[in-house]
Structures are given as structure tokens and as C-alpha cells.
């Protein structure tokens, strides 16, 4: 228990270190102009001409040191995105990878209802043995993120969130080496295909997001995943569960790096 707790604390500290580059994103708004600058007006040949200066409410408010209040609607927009971590895993030929897309609804810039849909796959051969594990199945997550920086609508967001996730999968366990009975001497191949299972799990999400330009955003997060229920074939639990990852002791860590579009 002690070693498991310290492992969690180490993971949380690692997550905090990951978020350090995001600190500049969390800078406060610049101070208002001093009042002396506001009273100086250019002199010219007015001669009855009028100077029309168009100042929007944002500029006037900032000049007066007041925060401009932009109207935030209850449904403040929608967004779609794609995760890059799984694509990188796939590109480098990792033993497992999960590629996912997401859609979300922005509620008052404070809550983000998120739906994530992905495809997880694994192709793993045992170390020093030729046992082979294969799975390729979809998964989905549904949850909500809370934007801690909702009072600072400067394009940067800092999220904490929760997810419920589910995956139903079929996995294969095979080996080119048949299994021999040492007493009887009989041999049978080891080739188990289409073993079914499913898993329900929850995720705790901690992430940041910034607006690059216009509707384009970048974001990344760290996730702590905990299995709620799992059903596996009697042969044994799968080496990898789509969407969850490798799960010794029923817990897993993960993360995403997303390109998002606010529409």
C-alpha cells in the first residue's frame, strides 16, 4: 500500500512538472493605462471640425482599468478534436496504441461536456517466448471538464474533469509452439481467437489548453484511470484493454495531446 501510494504521488508530481510550460499561458491580463495618458489629446486645425474617435467598449473599459465583460452564452459553442499521442504510438510501432477523436459542448465557458470515441489496438509478443496477444476494438468515454480559468476568457483553459469509459473487445491469444502433455505425450496447438471481454472504468483528468489562432486550439492532459468492473474470458485477463491501456492491479495512467477546433 505504501509503495502504491508513493507511486501515485510521484505520478502527480510528474504531471505538475509537465504543466510547467503552460505557466506562461496562465499569466494575468496587463495593467490598465495610467490616467495621465488618457487626458492628452492631439491639437490640430480643428476649426470646427469634429474628431470622431471610434473606441469599442473593450478599449474604453481597459483604459479605465475595468475588465471588459464579454457576453457568455449558456451554450457557448462546440468543439471537435483529435488526439496525437495515439498517432505517434502507431507511427513508431509501439506494442499498443489508441487513436481517438472528441466532440464537446461549451457551457458558459465553465463546463465542457465531452464525448470521446477511439480505437485501441495492441499487437504484443511475449519476452523470451513466442506467445502473442492481439486486440483491436473501439471504446468510448463520456464526461465533463471544468475550466478553472473561466473568469479569464483569454483563450487559455485549465481543466479538471471526470470520465466514464467503456469498451467491449475481442482478443486473441496464440502461440506457434504447441503445448505438449509431459505424461501422455499428446500435443495440441495454442490458438485462441475471439475471446470476449468488456470493461467499465473511470478517469480523473487534469489538463491545459490554449488558443493558437482563431478557432484552432492545442491542449494536453494527464489521466488517472481506475477500473470499475471488468469481465474477461476464463483463459486470462487481456494484456491491454482498448482505451484503458495496460492495467496491472486495475489502474492505469494515460494522457492526450489534442488539436481542437472550436466551431
Amino acid at each position, binding site marked *: 500500500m505504501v509503495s502504491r501510494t508513493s507511486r501515485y504521488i510521484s505520478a502527480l508530481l510528474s504531471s505538475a512538472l509537465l504543466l510547467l510550460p503552460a505557466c506562461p499561458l496562465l499569466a494575468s491580463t496587463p495593467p490598465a493605462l495610467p490616467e495621465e495618458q488618457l487626458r492628452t489629446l492631439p491639437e490640430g486645425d480643428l476649426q470646427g471640425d469634429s474628431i470622431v474617435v471610434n473606441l469599442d467598449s473593450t478599449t474604453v473599459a481597459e483604459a479605465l482599468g475595468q475588465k471588459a465583460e464579454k457576453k457568455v452564452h449558456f451554450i457557448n459553442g462546440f468543439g471537435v478534436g483529435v488526439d496525437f*499521442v495515439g498517432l505517434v504510438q502507431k507511427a513508431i510501432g509501439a506494442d499498443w496504441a489508441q487513436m481517438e477523436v472528441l466532440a464537446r459542448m461549451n457551457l458558459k465557458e465553465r463546463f465542457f461536456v465531452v464525448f470521446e470515441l477511439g480505437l485501441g489496438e495492441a499487437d504484443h509478443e511475449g*519476452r523470451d517466448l513466442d506467445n502473442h*496477444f492481439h486486440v483491436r476494438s473501439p471504446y468510448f468515454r463520456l464526461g465533463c471538464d471544468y475550466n478553472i480559468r473561466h473568469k479569464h476568457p483569454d483563450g487559455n483553459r485549465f481543466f479538471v474533469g471526470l470520465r466514464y469509459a467503456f469498451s467491449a473487445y475481442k482478443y486473441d491469444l496464440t502461440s506457434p509452439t504447441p503445448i505438449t502433455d509431459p505424461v501422455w505425450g499428446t500435443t495440441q496447438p495454442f490458438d485462441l481467437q475471439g475471446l470476449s471481454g468488456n470493461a467499465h472504468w473511470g478517469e480523473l483528468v487534469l489538463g491545459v489548453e490554449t488558443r493558437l489562432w482563431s478557432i484552432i486550439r492545442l491542449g494536453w492532459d494527464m489521466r488517472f484511470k481506475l477500473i470499475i468492473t471488468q469481465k474477461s474470458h476464463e483463459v486470462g485477463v487481456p494484456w491491454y484493454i482498448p482505451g484503458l491501456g495496460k492495467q496491472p492491479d486495475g489502474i492505469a495512467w494515460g494522457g492526450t495531446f489534442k488539436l481542437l477546433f472550436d466551431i
Partner: protein
Amino acid sequence: MSKKGTSYRLLPSIAGGVMACVLGVALCACESVSCPLNNTVESVYGFYAALYDDNGQLVKDQGISIGDTLNVTLLGPDSIIANRVTNQSGVNLPVSFYEDTDVIEFALTDTLSRVGRDTLWIHKRNTHHWDDPSCPVHMWHQVLGVRSTHHLIDTVLVTNPQINYDGLENFQIYFRIAE
């Protein structure tokens, strides 16, 4: 937003994203394998004395140590799977991987070279089991039923129908006790 502001946000975003990808790859690369150290699948037999109370009920768990010489043979391949076992309170025997029924002969030889034999039929269901792709695959068995002859054996009880590498007792053999 100014160009400087754009690059100001872009660089830490990319840096964080690269670290996230590196972390993702590291999570893939990290692998710890814990194969069970005790991975021999055997059926575990315990020896007991067949004693009955006044109500005619078998008194359980009266363990004994058999002084005679025990030889156990797996009929079919006629392989001796336990040879000259003496002064033991039980024996561990291998189980066939793919047969639905194991036929086992227990032969007890006393000091006068008299031999008593009994035959057990173990009906079972066989399944593969694995813990990890890096660990050997095992055969586990579920006992569906057992019967025996009764020359020396009074009763055979199934205490744990799961035959795996946990080392728990699966069968209790109650031997007749001379009065």
C-alpha cells in the same frame, strides 16, 4: 493577437505536447512482467482416516500418514506418476492436459509385500490459462466428479474443484482403518 503573442503561446504548447507524446511512448515502453514463481499445476491429495461418529457421519479432517509404500500409476499411458511414497500425509500428482477423465491406480504395499489396489476416475474440464504473454501457458482443470473402487479407500471427497498452481488440497482420500 500579435505575432509575438502567437509564438509566445505556441512554443510552450508545442513543448508540452512533445513531452506528452514522449510520456505516451514511455508508458508504452514500460513493461513489468510478474510471472508466478510457483507455476506447477498438480492435483493435491490428502490422506485421512475413515472414522464415523455415533450417528454414522464421517468424521472429517482426521489426517493420517501412511506407513505403507504407495505407488500411483496413470492408466492409459501406464505411467508411474508417484513412486515408492512412504510416511506421507498426501501426494501431489500431475493431471493430463487434454483427457476428460484421468484413471489413476493407487497401490499400497505393506511390510509383508501384500498389495492393495484401488482405482480412481477423475472427470474434469480442461482450460488454458495464461498470466502474461511473457509467461508460459498452463493448463488448468475443473473437477466435475470423482468415483473410486473401495478395497482400501472408503470415501473420496472433492474439497477444491479448481486444479491450478495454488497448491490447495483438491481431494481427501479416506482410507479404511482396521479395527
